[in-house]
């Protein structure tokens, strides 16, 4: 896809071996879902590129009959998002359902009309999480994550909301790599090319809200995180100090969203510290 190629020309080091990464993600996704004792997976489908890619990977890993897509619009969600989600559902042929979250969200905020957009957005994200986990028990389907590496690092997500899942196949992919892989897996073009948005209010886009472009922040994070460049080395790559301060600040400030709840140590075998087992532990 031309748009993707143009992006990757600016940062060729972000280009993945698409076929290989697809094999890694789908084979481990399938194996881990089965080891967890589940036949099926469930995920929220917003109409955006991230959840679409998770859907396509899940279908490739498990087959369309083992994947359930859930659309959970709020009354202010853009109708085009709902239509894009429908497009992905039709294209993959998975089972789907639509649950309008407007009644419970509006009921909750009725007595708090002054609630900020941030609170409303977080509440919606957690409502959707809550629905997915409820349906997970009903359908015996594991919840699949849809957060990419860029947004996890930036903390551009709601803790215990959209960042919650049992397995996340996207969490180690930069947003630019999500785009590359989505194109490779034939996610509908309009989902790939539209501006990414959390779709919490009209005309919201990630890049407007964050104040920078994904390709720029991916380039920066690659050199800072993966290559461990110092500030001096990053400056030589023409990254502006104000941009670096902003991004580094976000990444560090949001570390709490990437960790399990802190458990204050009292005993010699504390969960997460010296009680150490993988989830694969079967005794």
């Amino acid at each position: 896809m031309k748009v993707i190629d143009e992006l990757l020309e600016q940062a060729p080091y972000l280009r993945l071996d698409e076929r290989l990464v697809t094999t890694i993600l789908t084979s481990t996704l399938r194996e881990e879902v089965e080891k967890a004792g589940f036949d099926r997976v469930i995920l929220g489908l917003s109409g955006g590129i991230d959840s679409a890619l998770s859907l396509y990977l899940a279908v490739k890993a498990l087959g369309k009959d083992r994947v359930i897509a859930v659309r959970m619009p709020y009354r202010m969600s853009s109708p085009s998002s709902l239509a894009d989600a429908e497009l992905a559902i039709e294209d993959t042929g998975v089972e789907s359902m639509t649950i309008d979250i407007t009644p419970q969200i509006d009921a909750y905020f009725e007595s708090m009309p002054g609630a900020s957009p941030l609170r409303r957005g977080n509440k919606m994200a957690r409502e959707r999480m809550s629905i997915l986990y409820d349906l997970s028990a009903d359908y015996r389907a594991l919840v699949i994550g849809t957060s990419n590496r860029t947004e996890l690092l930036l903390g551009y997500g709601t803790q215990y909301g959209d960042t919650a899942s049992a397995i996340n196949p996207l969490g180690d992919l930069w947003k630019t790599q999500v785009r590359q892989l989505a194109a490779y897996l034939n996610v509908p073009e309009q989902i790939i090319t539209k501006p990414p948005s959390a779709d919490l209010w009209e005309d919201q886009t990630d890049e407007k809200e964050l104040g920078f472009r994904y390709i720029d922040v991916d380039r920066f994070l690659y050199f800072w995180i993966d290559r461990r460049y110092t500030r001096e080395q990053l400056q030589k790559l023409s990254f502006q100090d104000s941009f670096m301060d902003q991004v580094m600040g976000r990444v560090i400030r949001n570390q709490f969203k990437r960790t399990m709840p802190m458990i204050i140590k009292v005993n010699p075998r504390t969960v997460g510290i010296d009680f150490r087992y993988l989830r694969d532990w079967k005794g």
Partner: protein
Amino acid sequence: MRIGIAQMRPQLGRLEQNIENHLKLINKAKEKQVDLLVFPELSVTGYHLFDITFDVARRLTSAEIQMLIQQADGIDVVFGFVEHSSDHYFYNSAVYASHRRLTHLHRKVYLSTYGTFHETRYFGTGKSVRSFSTRFGQLGLLISEDAWHFSLPYLLAMDGAELTIVLSNSIVNGVTKEGILTHQKWKTLLTSHAMGYGNFSLFANRVGSEDNFSFYGGSFIVDPFGEIVTEAPVFQEELMILDLDMDQVRQARFQTPLLRDEKINLTIRELQRIRQKQTDGGENR
């Protein structure tokens, strides 16, 4: 000699299941007239054991390990397990069994503890590396990280190894447009060993996942000229079989007699000098 690599999928901490799988693969290899079957690192237990290490460690004399050694009947077998030593330390160990007896035990010397690896937290370090005689010639065992320290394959070659067997549990830890980074590096590494020492090098890796880690397989064998002669697919279980002509070692070493010309006394002398320098400099390794 017909060699087999069991590119298998161990289940984490499931000793019974894994041993059963070993038996199946050994029988399958026997049917195919394999002379030597190699399993990957920690094939009996799985890799990311963490606290499970305590539960799955077994003595060499335990019923489970002895039962596996007994399978080396008409076939030689190499496998990996967590060894519980007589002084109650745990080792990441590999067994070479032949004629229903233990021929050689190797304890991993260089435990990986950086990045995503935590081995020294759980395992003691092996203290020696030796080649040993088999009906196919002189062999050596290394476990994964061991092979990345150039001294160990060097010592094995100097000790006469004509075939160096590397048991591994290598995971995806970087993907570029050229493929799996670590897999490429393993190939570079072992082809270099083979070229430098004129011996066969064998890489036995596992497949399957443990939580978020993906083992990629891609086991391979390098001939004494440094050519990869066979390579298993990635991400697939496979019993890879190849007939090795051990006489190629003779041919390679005549063509390029690097090992013959190796100046062992110079190496020892210089290493002693370097050790002295480090001691004098306050660095004592």
